[in-house]
């Protein structure tokens, strides 16, 4: 007899949502978390909020966020979606915060804080790690078994039916049998070899913003077992991060918001893209790919004294100099070239009224590439420089699922007792772009569906 009804592989938001829901239904549940306890929670530990539709303001959300508006926001960025699944996520998003609060999750008050997403997103008090702490405490209280350092390295699947998982903890390997399995182990963004398959040697210069434990082992096992893939295997979400960031797990603090306030040059000292194309929140996720396409996958943000204090401070100090020449030298860039780039840019700047809150009329003329907004001469020392690299947030390739979170096999049939939730299936809803907080919405909604369905199957 199986000791467990439901095995949940992966201990992030989606995994714990599935585990708690399955337990609610009376199932005997085990969570297999690949990371050690201190780093449990996958990329959820770096998140901060969850996007949710709602009809009226409450203590955590301002105004109203109708489902149709949410769907429109998603369509604008997602590059296509599975509409029924997207509608399912959005429709169930409204109920997420109340369910989460039952497990001790706390949300920030919408009344104060430096937030501009207070209408659309509910913010976890203390962020994603606090959220995961609450979930793990609730799981322990509920009698769910949790294993840390438990990497799943094999799955027994035949004809779309799961029977057991092979789990490695240190040197020890064991077999965990269960009547149903929920796959919630994230994407493959911290598997550099796999990234290299998609990006070539450039991947060696990528920084992985999140957990080093999302190696895609489970995704690979499932694809090899005949599961149907969804999403572009080469697509990933990447932003500009400080090049001095740690290789893994740097999280939110390595991100740089200085780009619209100055110019960006590559390793040759040349500009390569419009830094003022659109409002920063809409464009910050384009810069990861832009920098990835530059020589050595590196770029440099250069601002002058006028920009200081206008963007969120980065965790690494700026390189500071009193002239562009000195700054270029300090950044190991060709000084003459950078000087001429800045001089050309300064000559092209037209007079305007600078306003960082709108698409203002400060722009360049006769410059390629142009800077369409917030273009101000870079002429007031001290000059600040930051080195930038592509920072990968997550990958889009995943497992195709149906509305019951059941994994679809390449044969066209649904797997009998295999369910997926979270980043490993987010590609069903997001093909190439995302809106802030929707990853946690997908994880919570599909986690709960997967937990419920898995428990029902096992029961």
């Amino acid at each position, binding site marked *: 007899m199986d000791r467990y009804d439901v095995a949940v592989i992966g201990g992030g938001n989606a995994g714990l949502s599935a585990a708690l829901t399955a337990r609610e239904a009376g199932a005997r549940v085990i969570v297999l978390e690949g990371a050690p306890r201190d780093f449990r929670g996958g990329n959820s530990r770096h998140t901060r909020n969850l996007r949710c539709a709602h009809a009226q303001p409450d203590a955590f959300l301002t105004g109203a966020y109708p489902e149709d508006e949410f769907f429109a926001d998603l369509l604008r960025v997602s590059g296509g979606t599975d509409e029924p699944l997207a509608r399912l996520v959005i429709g169930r998003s409204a109920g997420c915060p109340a369910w989460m609060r039952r497990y001790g999750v*706390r949300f920030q*008050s919408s009344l104060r804080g430096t937030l501009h997403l207070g209408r659309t997103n509910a913010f976890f008090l203390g962020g994603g790690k606090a959220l995961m702490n609450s979930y793990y405490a609730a799981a322990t209280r509920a009698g769910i078994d949790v294993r840390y350092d438990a990497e799943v390295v094999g799955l027994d699947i035949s004809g779309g039916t799961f029977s057991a998982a092979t789990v490695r903890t240190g040197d020890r390997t064991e077999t965990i049998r269960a009547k149903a399995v929920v796959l919630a182990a994230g994407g493959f963004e911290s598997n550099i070899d796999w990234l290299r398959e998609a990006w070539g040697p450039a991947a060696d210069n990528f920084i992985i913003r999140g957990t080093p434990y999302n190696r895609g082992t489970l995704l690979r096992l499932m694809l090899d077992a005949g599961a149907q893939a969804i999403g572009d295997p080469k697509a990933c979400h990447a932003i500009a991060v400080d090049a001095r960031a740690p290789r893994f797990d740097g*999280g939110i*603090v390595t991100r740089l918001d200085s780009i619209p306030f100055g110019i960006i040059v590559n390793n040759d000292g040349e500009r390569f893209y419009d830094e003022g194309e659109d409002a920063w929140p809409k464009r910050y996720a384009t810069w990861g790919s832009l920098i990835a396409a530059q020589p050595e996958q590196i770029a440099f943000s250069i601002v002058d004294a006028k920009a200081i204090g206008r963007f969120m401070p980065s965790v690494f100090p700026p390189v500071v100099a009193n002239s562009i020449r000195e700054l270029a030298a300090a950044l190991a860039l060709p000084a003459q070239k950078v000087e001429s780039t800045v001089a050309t840019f300064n000559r092209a700047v037209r007079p305007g009224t600078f306003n960082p809150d709108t698409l203002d009329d400060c722009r360049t003329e006769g410059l390629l590439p142009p800077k369409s907004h917030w273009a101000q001469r870079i002429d007031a020392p001290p000059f600040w420089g930051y080195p930038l690299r592509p920072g990968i947030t997550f990958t889009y390739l995943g497992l195709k699922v149906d509305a019951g979170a059941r994994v679809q096999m390449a044969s066209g049939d649904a797997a009998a007792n295999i369910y997926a939730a979270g980043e490993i299936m987010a590609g069903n809803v997001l093909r190439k772009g995302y809106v802030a907080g929707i990853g946690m919405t997908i994880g919570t909604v599909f986690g709960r569906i997967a937990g419920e369905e898995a428990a029902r199957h096992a029961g």
Partner: protein
Amino acid sequence: MQAETLRLGQHVMTVCNACRYCEQYCPVFPAMERRLTFTETDLNYLANLCHNCGECLYACQYAPPHEFGINVPRTLARIRLQSYEEYCWPRVVAGAFRHHGIVTACALVAALVVMMLLAGGVTAPVDGSGNFYAVIPHHVMVTLFGGVSIFVLAAFGVGMRRFWRNLDTSRIRGLTPDTGRIWGLTPVRDVLTLRHLHATGVDCTTAEETRSPWRRWFHHCTFYGFLLCFASTTVAALYHMTGSVAPYAYTSLPVILGTSGGIGLLVGPAGLFLLRARRDPALGDPAQDGLDEAFILLLLLTSLTGLALLVLRHQPVMGLLLVVHLSTVLALFVTLPYGKFVHGLYRAAALAKFAAEEQNDR
């Protein structure tokens, strides 16, 4: 401040300021967000705003063993201790903060010797009337404790003045006398309710996902117990001036105030002492265990001897008890400016500055 502590404080606050996930836990984070860089002054201010509740350590994605190694409660506790030393008057005794256990013990012994000498040996009045002044005359008590109080108040005054000046309040409207503005009763409420030990929310962290109201309640017992004892002494002094001389009846105002205060000072410190053992050691600065424990034990000893004195004041042991109780109170008073007590003063000042900054931003 030691260069290493300064560097650590700046590192921690720089990471926090780029993250800001903790911004709704307490005032430390909104106060931090108003700054881009962190001087020694800023760190002293932030450190004294911190109530050491611990929420931000457990919520931190950069907490050890992450390579950034962020532990805000412990870092700010270390800075807080150095700020106590920095503002201490006279500065030559600033070392007391690091050797508080020994200092407290020495103060107790010295106070005992002084009291013994003043009492001329321990003798209870034979009549059992409970007349304390037969053991130590009233004018001797007044002179001794009056003198010590003046010294203690002077030390507090200088310390607070140094702290306040160091806070750089010049930019804050409402703190400069010329504007005549006040910044409201917010800091007073914050102190009296311990609002930032989550009086309005879900209580205080003792370990990850373990929260209880007890730290706040035991602190309330201690704080209000102390105030009630102080009130009792003040009322008794007024009685004495009007010719009503101790010992007072159980139903008299000084005894009611003193008894309830004494019980508070018994329950509060005892509770805080027990809670310390259950707290996650990662939240505090181990170098300050002595500072915390010596103060707690001295308060406990004060209330124990005081209550014993009340109950046994008509017994032969009264003389000995009075000498021990007064010695404890004397040691407590003398060490107030050089021990844990100062956290209340600097915390209140930091909260006042925070309230003013909040009002400025509105």
